[in-house]
C-alpha cells in the first residue's frame, strides 16, 4: 500500500489532477459557475492527494527518485527527487491549497461576469503545479521550468483584477523583480555547471570539492539574492507589499503562505545540503538579513493602513524569523555543532509551517472583509465584529498566532527559535556571541511590535463603531469561506498543542540531511507532554498550558457568576461621551494608533507630513477652503537604493546609446571589429 502511494505513478496522478483542473477550467471558461467548481474541485482533489502522498512519504521515510524518459536536450533531464524536505514542503502547499480552494469556491463568485473565472482557475492550478515541480525537481534546468511556471502564473494572478491600474503596475514591478531574481539563480546554476559539469543536484553535491572557494562564495551570494527576492528579504522586498495585495485573496494567501517559502526551501537545500561544507560568514550573512528583515518588516507593517499590505509586511517579518533559525543553523553547521544546527533547522522548518497556516488564515480573513467592504483601507472599517462574527473570531485566532501568543502555533516555533539562539549565546565566543544577542533582541522586539500591530489591526477592523456606512451593509461570508478559515484556525490551535509531535517529525526530516547523519543524540528530547530542549535547559507544554488556562477561566467565571454575585443587573448604556455626541470620527484610527510608535522610530521610518491648503482667496490667504494632510512614510529603499540604481542604469543606457548611430556602415564595422576580437582570442 505504502509503495503505491509513494510511487512515481502516484506523484504523476498528483500533477495531472492540477493539470486537468487548469486546462479543463480554461476550456469551460464561458460558464463562470462550472469553471469555478471545476478548477477548485480538481485543486481540492489534488491537495488531498498531495497531503496523503507527503504524509506517507514523511512517515515511512521513503524517498523517491526517478527520471522520466529521454530528454531531447542533453542538459535537461526530467528527473525528480522527492526526499523528506520536498515532501514536507509538498505537505505545506497541499495543506494551504486545500483550504484556499475550499474558500475560493465562495470567494471567486464576486468576480462573476467581471472577469473570466476559467482563466483564474487555469492560473491558480498552474501556480500550484509549478510549485510542486520546483519542489521535486533535481535538475537545475528542470527546476527553473517549475520556478518560471510558478512565477508567471502568479504574475497573471496579480494582474487578474486588471481594471485597477494599480494592480497592473504592481504586477509589472513583481515581474521585473522576479526576473532579476531568476537571473541571479541562473548565474548560480551556470557557475555550478562550469565547475561540476552538471545541472543535477546530486552530481553537484558529490563534486562540490571541485569548486574553488571564491567561486563558491559568488554562488552563495547569487543564490542568496536570487532566492531572497522570492522570499522577500529586505531590501529586495519591494515587490511583496505591492503584489500580494493586488492578487485575489486566496491567491495572496498562497503567495504569502507558500510561494515565498520556496525561496527558503532552496536556501535550505543549497546551503545546508548541496553546497556543504560552508564557511561561517554565510550563516552570519543570513542571520543579519534575518535580523534586519524581521525588525523592519514589523515596523513597516505598523505604518500601514491597507489591510493586505500590512499582512504582506508581516510576511517579510516572519521570513526574517525563519532566517534567524536558518542562519543559526548555518553558523552551527559550519562550526561543526550538528546538534545545535539541527535544533535551529527544526525551529526554522516549524516556523515555515506555522507561518503558512496563520498567514493564509489572516489573508483569507482579510479577503472576506474586503469582499464586503470593497476597500482595503482599514480606516473605513470598524465594528465589523457585530456584522461578521465568525470571520472576526477566526481573524482573532490568526492575530494571536502571529503575535506568538500561547497556546497557538506561532508561539512554539518562536520559542524554538529563541531557544536555538539562546544556545548560541551560551556556547559561542565573543563577536559571534554578540551577534546572537542582537538576534535575540530583534526577535524579542519583533514579538512586542507584532503584538501592537495586531491589536491595531484587529481593533480598527472589527471593534468600536462603524466608520463608514458600508460596514452596516456587511454580511457574514458564505459557508465555504468560513469553512476554509475555520479549518486553518483549528490547525493553528492543534499545531500549537501537539507541537512536540510535529517537531519530532520535523527532526526526522532534518536528520535525513547528509550533515546530520551519524549524530549520536539530538537536543530536542522526545517528550509527549511538550517541547523540551537538552536535559531540561528548557521545556514547555502547550497542552498543559491550555488545560490549566481553560480550567482557571472556567473556575473564575463560575465563582463570579454564581457564587459571588447572583442578583446583579446589567444595564446597557452609551459609551462615556463627555457630554457631546460621540461620532465614529472620535474613535482612534489605525494611523493614530501606530503614530506614537512611528514617532519613536522616526529615525528609521522617516515619517512625512504634507499639508495642502486651498484658500478662498489665494491673494489674501486668510480663509482656507480646504485642508489636506497627507501622512506617509518615505520609503528608504526607494530613495537610497532603487532610485540611485535606476539613475545609474539610465545613465549607462544613455551612454550606450551613443554607439547606435543609425548608420549601417558603422554597424557593419562593429560586426567586423567583434569578429576580429573573437578571432584574436581564439587563435
Amino acid at each position, binding site marked *: 500500500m505504502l509503495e503505491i502511494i509513494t510511487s512515481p505513478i502516484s506523484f504523476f496522478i498528483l500533477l495531472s489532477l492540477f493539470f486537468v483542473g487548469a486546462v479543463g477550467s480554461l476550456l469551460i471558461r464561458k460558464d463562470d459557475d462550472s469553471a469555478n467548481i471545476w478548477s477548485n474541485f480538481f485543486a481540492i482533489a489534488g491537495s488531498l492527494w498531495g497531503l496523503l502522498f507527503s504524509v506517507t512519504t514523511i512517515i515511512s521515510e521513503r524517498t523517491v527518485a526517478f527520471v522520466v524518459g529521454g530528454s531531447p536536450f542533453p542538459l535537461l533531464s526530467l528527473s525528480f527527487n522527492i526526499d523528506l524536505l520536498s515532501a514536507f514542503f509538498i505537505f505545506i502547499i497541499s495543506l494551504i491549497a486545500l483550504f484556499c480552494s475550499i474558500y475560493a469556491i465562495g470567494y471567486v463568485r464576486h468576480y462573476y461576469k467581471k472577469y473570466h473565472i476559467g482563466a483564474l482557475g487555469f492560473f491558480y492550478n498552474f501556480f500550484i503545479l509549478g510549485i510542486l515541480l520546483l519542489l521535486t525537481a533535481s535538475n537545475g534546468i528542470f527546476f527553473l521550468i517549475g520556478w518560471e511556471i510558478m512565477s508567471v502564473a502568479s504574475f497573471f494572478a496579480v494582474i487578474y483584477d486588471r481594471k485597477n491600474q494599480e494592480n497592473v503596475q504592481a504586477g509589472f514591478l513583481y515581474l521585473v523583480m522576479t526576473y532579476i531574481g531568476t537571473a541571479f539563480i541562473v548565474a548560480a546554476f551556470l557557475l555550478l555547471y562550469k565547475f561540476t559539469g552538471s545541472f543535477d543536484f546530486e552530481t553537484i553535491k558529490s563534486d562540490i570539492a571541485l569548486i574553488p572557494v571564491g567561486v563558491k562564495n559568488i554562488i552563495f551570494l547569487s543564490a542568496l539574492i536570487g532566492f531572497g527576492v522570492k522570499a522577500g528579504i529586505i531590501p529586495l522586498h519591494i515587490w511583496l507589499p505591492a503584489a500580494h495585495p493586488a492578487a485575489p485573496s486566496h491567491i495572496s494567501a498562497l503567495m504569502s503562505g507558500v510561494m515565498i517559502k520556496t525561496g527558503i526551501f532552496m536556501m535550505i537545500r543549497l546551503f545546508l545540503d548541496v553546497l556543504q561544507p560552508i564557511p561561517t560568514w554565510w550563516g552570519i550573512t543570513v542571520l543579519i538579513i534575518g535580523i534586519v528583515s524581521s525588525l523592519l518588516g514589523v515596523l513597516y507593517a505598523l505604518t500601514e493602513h491597507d489591510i493586505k499590505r500590512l499582512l504582506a509586511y508581516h510576511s517579510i517579518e516572519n521570513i526574517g524569523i525563519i532566517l534567524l533559525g536558518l542562519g543559526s543553523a548555518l553558523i552551527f553547521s559550519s562550526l561543526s555543532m550538528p546538534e545545535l544546527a539541527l535544533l535551529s533547522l527544526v525551529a526554522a522548518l516549524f516556523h515555515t509551517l506555522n507561518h503558512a497556516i496563520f498567514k493564509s488564515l489572516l489573508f483569507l480573513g482579510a479577503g472576506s472583509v474586503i469582499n464586503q467592504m470593497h476597500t482595503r483601507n482599514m480606516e473605513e472599517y470598524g465594528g465589523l465584529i457585530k456584522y461578521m462574527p465568525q470571520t472576526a473570531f477566526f481573524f482573532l485566532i490568526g492575530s494571536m498566532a502571529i503575535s506568538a501568543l500561547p497556546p497557538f502555533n506561532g508561539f512554539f516555533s518562536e520559542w524554538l527559535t529563541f531557544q536555538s539562539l539562546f544556545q548560541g549565546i551560551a556556547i559561542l565566543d565573543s563577536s559571534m556571541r554578540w551577534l546572537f544577542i542582537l538576534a*535575540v533582541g530583534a526577535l*524579542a522586539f519583533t514579538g512586542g511590535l507584532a503584538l501592537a500591530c495586531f491589536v491595531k489591526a484587529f481593533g480598527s477592523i472589527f471593534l468600536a463603531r462603524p466608520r463608514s456606512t458600508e460596514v452596516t451593509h456587511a454580511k457574514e461570508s458564505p459557508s465555504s469561506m468560513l469553512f476554509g478559515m475555520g479549518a486553518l484556525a483549528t490547525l493553528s490551535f492543534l499545531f500549537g498543542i501537539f507541537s512536540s509531535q510535529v517537531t519530532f517529525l520535523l527532526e526526522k526530516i532534518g536528520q535525513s540531511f547528509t550533515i546530520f547523519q551519524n549524530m549520536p543524540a539530538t537536543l530536542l528530547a522526545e517528550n509527549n507532554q511538550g517541547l523540551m530542549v537538552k536535559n*531540561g535547559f*528548557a521545556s514547555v507544554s502547550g497542552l498543559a498550558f491550555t488545560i490549566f488556562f481553560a480550567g482557571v477561566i472556567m473556575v473564575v467565571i463560575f465563582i463570579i457568576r454564581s457564587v*459571588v454575585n447572583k442578583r446583579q443587573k446589567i444595564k446597557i448604556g452609551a*459609551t*462615556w461621551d463627555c457630554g457631546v455626541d460621540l461620532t465614529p470620527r472620535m*474613535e482612534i484610527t489605525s494611523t493614530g494608533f501606530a503614530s506614537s510608535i512611528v514617532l519613536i522610530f522616526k529615525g528609521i521610518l522617516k515619517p512625512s507630513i504634507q499639508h495642502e491648503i486651498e484658500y478662498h482667496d489665494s491673494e489674501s490667504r486668510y480663509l482656507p477652503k480646504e485642508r489636506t494632510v497627507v501622512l506617509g512614510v518615505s520609503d528608504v529603499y526607494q530613495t537610497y537604493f532603487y532610485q540611485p540604481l535606476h539613475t545609474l542604469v539610465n545613465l549607462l543606457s544613455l551612454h550606450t546609446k551613443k554607439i547606435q548611430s543609425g548608420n549601417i556602415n558603422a554597424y557593419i564595422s562593429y560586426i567586423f571589429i567583434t569578429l576580429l576580437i573573437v578571432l584574436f582570442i581564439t587563435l
Partner: protein
Amino acid sequence: MTIFIWTIQCIFIPVVSPLCVGIIKKIKARLQNREGASIFQPYKDLWKLLHKDEVISRDASWIFHSAPFIVFAVTIVVGASIPLFGSFFNNTLTGDMLIIVYALSIGTFFLALAGMDTGSAFGGFGSSREMNLVALAEGGLIFSLLTAALISGTTNLSAISGSLFGQSQHFLSALLAFSGFFIVLLAETARFPYDNPDTHLELTMIHEAMILEYSGKKLALLEWASANKLLIFFALGANLFFPFGLAQNAYAGAIIIGIAIFMVKIFIFCLVIALIESGMAKLRFFRLPDLLFISFVLNVVALGLIR
C-alpha cells in the same frame, strides 16, 4: 502534599495582591502627611465592586465582556507557574520564562482590545499607549530574564531561582539585569514614571484609560488582575535576583519560613515603589522609550558580562 502546595501557589497571588496595593497606598499617604486608608481597604473595594450592578456600552462586543475573565485568568496561571516561596517546585510544563512573558502578553492583548471595543477616544488612546510601552518593554523583560537564565543554565524559572545561590562571580551581571528588570517592572505594572495608578483624569493615563468603560464585577476583576500582575513582577524580581530564603524542599517548616521571607521581600518592593511614586514626577510620554531603551542596554551589558 503536592496538591496542597499547588493550591497555595494558585491562590497565593490573588489573596495577597490587594494587600500590596494597600501597603503602597498607605506608605504614600504617610509620606504625604495623611493618615490614609487601612491597608485592607483594597479588599473592601473589590468586595464592594463585585456586588454592584454594571453599566455596559451598547457598542461593546463579546471581546469587552470576556476580556476581564481572560486577563484575570492569565494572572492566576502565571502566578501559579512562577516560584513564589519555594524553588523545589519543578514546574517543567508552564514554568518556562518565555511562556510566562508571552502569557502575560495575552492579558495585555485582550485588555488593549477591550479598551478599543467601546469606541471611546479614551480607551483607544489608552490601548495605543499601552501597546507602545509593552512593545518596547518586551525586549528588556526577556533580556533581564535571559541573563538570569544563562547564569543558571536553564530557562525554567523555578530552576533559576534554585541555582542563583552562590553565583557571586556573576554579581555585577545580576545587579545590572535587576536594574533593567526594575525599569520594565514599573512600565508593565503601570506605575510612576510611566503611568499614574491613582487617577482617571490625567491626559497621559494608560492603564486606567483602557478600563474606563468597565464597572461592577468586571471592573473588580480588572483591578484585581492589575494588582496580581504587580505582585507577579515583585515575585519575579525577588525570587530570581534575590533568591535567599526560598524553601528548598516541601517541608512545612521550610515553606512557612519561605512565605515569611517572601512577605518581607514584597514589603521592601512596596516601600521602594511608594518612595519612587512620592519622590518623582511622571515622565512625558515620549521620554518613556528612552527609559525602556536604557533597560535594554543595561541587560545587554549584563549579558555581555557573563563568564
